[in-house]
């Protein structure tokens, strides 16, 4: 039997290759770098990420199916690749000093982050359930370990094991769903599945079960209610830099996978499960926001807030229109800057033997460090969706997608929730600006940290003031899914 090799286009998967090489390089160099100079590894990683970014540039505009339709390079995947690279770069920047403080400055840290990023990329590009699943695992498994990376810290360990147990459980669930989907169509390739659905008629309960299980698995990664309960614990336990990383990275990657599945495999028949997604979105928004109101730990608070934000993003998926999908992409891109920014603030406050993640710890921060205060306010404004920040643009686009397709109630719940969220964001702002400091407020800053903060503030404001390029890019990225379909105006 002659071996028929698939079409291998190494150029097209240059980013993934570059990242793999980078992992190996980091692991190798780690052997020769003394414990006190581990920051070098961070710089190396940063360099590699930038190089990868440059290597990704030529791919823009490419549309190719690779490896026997297992993998796809298209504008959608590339959009996400840039998101992931940005996340990586920012994560590395905010990690370097923090790791030293927490005394976990190990080369493996960077390696695991990079592994996870590769997983994300694979997920975004996967055009086969198998690839997506493997990407998901490659993304998750390093994060389980990173969450528990502070071995001497009970909370970190606990967060790790909890996240891992639930992750494995949800992995089983998602697998079962995939297996059922395979059983129905006889294939795991998304496009082929879509073709197979074209043959069958009417709704099928087996397919529904499969969709529920798959969605549940993704919902777990995204942290949607009721699959979100790991999030506060894991977010709080994890090293803050990892919290920042996973809060945006996992979410983005999982949405990428889910979006592609829904846009390709379930295209045209997804409507029958809209109620499922609708419920997820609404419950996530509401539960997340309400629960966040009483949190006293900032990381937990942000965890709930990220649940709520996941709910907002879910709106785009519920709508399923071109604008809806584009708004998901836009929001995820925007979300990087603001959410990582907010977590960076916790890092800023973190000192030796002082976690600095309680809301209390922020009392009077703005008085002692006005710039940090302004930065924080900008991130929170953005998270709350107040212009002229990126968060507003993102939310605006999401709501407009909902309105366009007639999901008035969903939009209404969404906007009301965003009002609700102001309460707890501004509780912290009030703490920073209007409360008397309990004691001396110190922050630990470093050049990379400042750079990261500067980048994020600039990102939030720039996108807020001039979002057009990003919106166009997001639109262009999802446009191929909707070729032929025209935008529907509000239906009475």
């Amino acid at each position, binding site marked *: 039997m002659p071996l028929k090799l698939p079409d291998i286009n190494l150029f097209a998967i240059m980013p993934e290759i570059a990242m793999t090489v980078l992992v190996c390089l980091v692991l190798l160099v780690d052997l020769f770098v003394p414990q006190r100079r581990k920051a070098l590894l961070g710089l190396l990683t940063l360099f590699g990420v930038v190089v990868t970014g440059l290597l990704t540039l030529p791919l823009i505009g490419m549309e190719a199916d690779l490896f026997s339709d297992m993998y796809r390079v298209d504008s959608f995947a590339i959009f996400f690749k840039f998101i992931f690279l940005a996340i990586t770069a920012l994560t590395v920047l905010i990690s370097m000093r923090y790791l030293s403080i927490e005394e976990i400055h190990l080369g493996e840290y960077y390696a695991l982050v990079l592994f996870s990023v590769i997983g994300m990329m694979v997920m975004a590009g996967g055009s086969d359930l198998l690839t997506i699943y493997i990407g998901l695992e490659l993304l998750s498994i390093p994060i389980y370990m990173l969450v528990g990376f502070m071995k001497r810290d009970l909370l970190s360990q606990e967060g790790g094991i909890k996240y891992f147990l639930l992750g494995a459980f949800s992995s089983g669930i998602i697998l079962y769903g995939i297996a059922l989907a395979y059983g129905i169509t006889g294939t795991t390739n998304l496009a082929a599945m879509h073709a197979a659905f074209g043959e069958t008629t009417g709704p099928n309960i087996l397919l529904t079960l499969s969709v529920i299980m798959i969605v549940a698995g993704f919902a777990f990664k995204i942290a949607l209610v009721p699959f979100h309960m790991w999030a506060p614990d894991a977010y709080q336990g994890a090293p803050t830099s990892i919290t920042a990383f996973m809060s945006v990275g996992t979410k983005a990657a999982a949405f990428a996978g889910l979006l592609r599945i829904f846009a390709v495999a379930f295209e045209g028949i997804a409507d029958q499960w809209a109620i499922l997604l609708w419920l997820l979105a609404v419950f996530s928004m509401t539960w997340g926001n309400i629960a966040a109101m009483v949190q006293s730990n900032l990381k937990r608070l942000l965890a709930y807030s990220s649940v709520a934000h996941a709910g907002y993003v879910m709106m785009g998926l519920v709508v399923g229109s071109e604008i809806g999908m584009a708004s998901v992409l836009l929001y995820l891109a925007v979300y990087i800057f603001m959410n990582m920014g907010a977590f960076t603030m916790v890092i800023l406050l973190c000192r030796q033997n002082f976690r600095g993640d309680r809301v209390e710890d922020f009392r009077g921060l703005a008085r002692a460090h006005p710039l940090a205060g302004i930065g924080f306010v900008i991130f929170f404004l953005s998270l709350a969706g107040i*212009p002229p920040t990126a968060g507003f643009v993102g939310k605006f686009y999401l709501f407009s997608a909902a309105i366009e397709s007639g999901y*008035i109630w969903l939009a209404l719940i969404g*906007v009301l929730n965003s009002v609700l969220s*102001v309460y707890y964001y501004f509780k912290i702002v*009030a703490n920073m600006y209007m409360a008397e400091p309990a004691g001396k407020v110190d922050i630990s800053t470093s050049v990379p940290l400042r750079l990261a903060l500067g980048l994020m503030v600039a990102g939030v404001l720039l996108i807020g003031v001039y979002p057009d390029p990003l919106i166009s890019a997001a639109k262009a990225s999802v446009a191929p899914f909707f070729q032929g379909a025209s935008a529907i105006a*509000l239906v*009475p």
Partner: protein
Amino acid sequence: MTNALGFSVLSITAYVPIVGAILIMFLFSRQRPLAIKWFAFGVSLISLFFSLFMIPYFEPSNVQMQFVERAEWIPSIGVQYFFGIDGISLPLIILTTLLSSVAVLCSFSNIGERQKEYYVSLLILETGMLGVFMALDVFLFYVFWEVMLVPMYFLIGIWGGQRKLYAAIKFFLYTLFGSVFILLGFLALYFLNANPAYGSGEFTFNLLELYRMAPRLPENFQFWIFLALFVGFAIKVPLFPLHTWLPDAHVEAPTAGSVILAGVLLKMGTYGFVRFSLPLLPKASFNLVPFISLLAIIGIIYGALVAMAQKDIKKLVAYSSVSHLGFVMLGIFALNSQGLLGALLQNLNHGLSTGALFLIVGILYERRHTRMIADYGGLSSVMPVFTVVFAIAMFSSIGLPGLNGFVGEFLILLGVFQTSTVYAAFAVTGIVLGAGYMLWLFQRMMFGPVTHEENRNLRDMNRREVAYMLPILVLMFWIGIYPKPYLEIMEPSVKNLIQHVELARGTPESLSAQASEALRQHQYLTTEWSR
């Protein structure tokens, strides 16, 4: 659609303050508060200068937008950077720049700590407010609408009174709650316009384009969108029963904050109704007149009654705002030229008179650190100049002829009377009550013997205080005695608007041939807007 001046005068007016704020933020040391103060004042004066500079170039008879600036901003969703003003917005812009300058000046002595942040907030706030009155793209409008909340939140929250945190977050949440409904309403309009069945079929947030949809938009759509916008604007106005944020915010805010809140922020609500609800949704506006009038009348009487029972001066003034804004709303929803003209003028008047009253309270508070009426009494023998100023502001507020309040109230009532005698009759009782609580306040504070020893040696107003009160007082008399210039600026735009509403409330089919021709020819609807 002209710009009589060759340059972007609107943008300059609007952005001078925020540029000033950024300069203060980065260039000024917090060790030199004096420099910051004067710089901030200078910045606000520049903005004031530019806003006044526009007046001679403004053509009142031209009902189109003037000093227009237009550029693509977010073409992918049809958002433009679109500034322009007409006779409705110009007075409000001048009011804003004027009161902002006053607000800066009045803060010199009563803000002692964190002055840098304070002036930065104040200037950013000014930019936000100006943007609201200039924007002709609903997206742009919304951006400014919300931007302005944040500095106000800080003004109340950091430099406010005892319950500042509560008041600040309440203000923020309350108004944000309203504005998200506005957002939904705008989005609905945007997509309806994109539907060729109703609108131009284009995706655009250009307000003037959206106006053109008004006659074709079915009534039930109009109704729901109107309700959405109503919630947002009515909270800002504030219309009974959505007013409960106002006393807290007004009372807890520092003097400048109260002045800006009462003087400008509340006007945004009424401006919103005039600029958006009426022309965009004429049918719904007509249908809901009884409902809104009822609320407005309740607000007038209720606000006055509640004001009467207050022990706190600021609260009293705050509730008087509820009452006065009820008048304005009533005038707007008289839906005739006189009522609307009066309402717009009353907008200005209320900004001046209530602004002045808050300044007065601020002057007292600075000296005595109490806002309780009972802590004063007999001040007129101690502070004669102050007494005169207070008296003029009070009489302006209760609408004494010869002062500004009367002209506005009169026109409003004149307009309302033509719509409904009953509304006017009820509203008139508000005038009586207004005189009641104001005079009572004045009497308790200023007349009688000096009841508290601490008050015996209060300083009278100093030069700075006189300096910022003076322009307000002059305007009060000016508008009261010779309002013609103001009315002339507003009248053509008002007439145009009312005409539009009148024509667009009918369905195209139901209109007579003549009327539908008039509708087609109408200014708002014919001007070609290239996208």
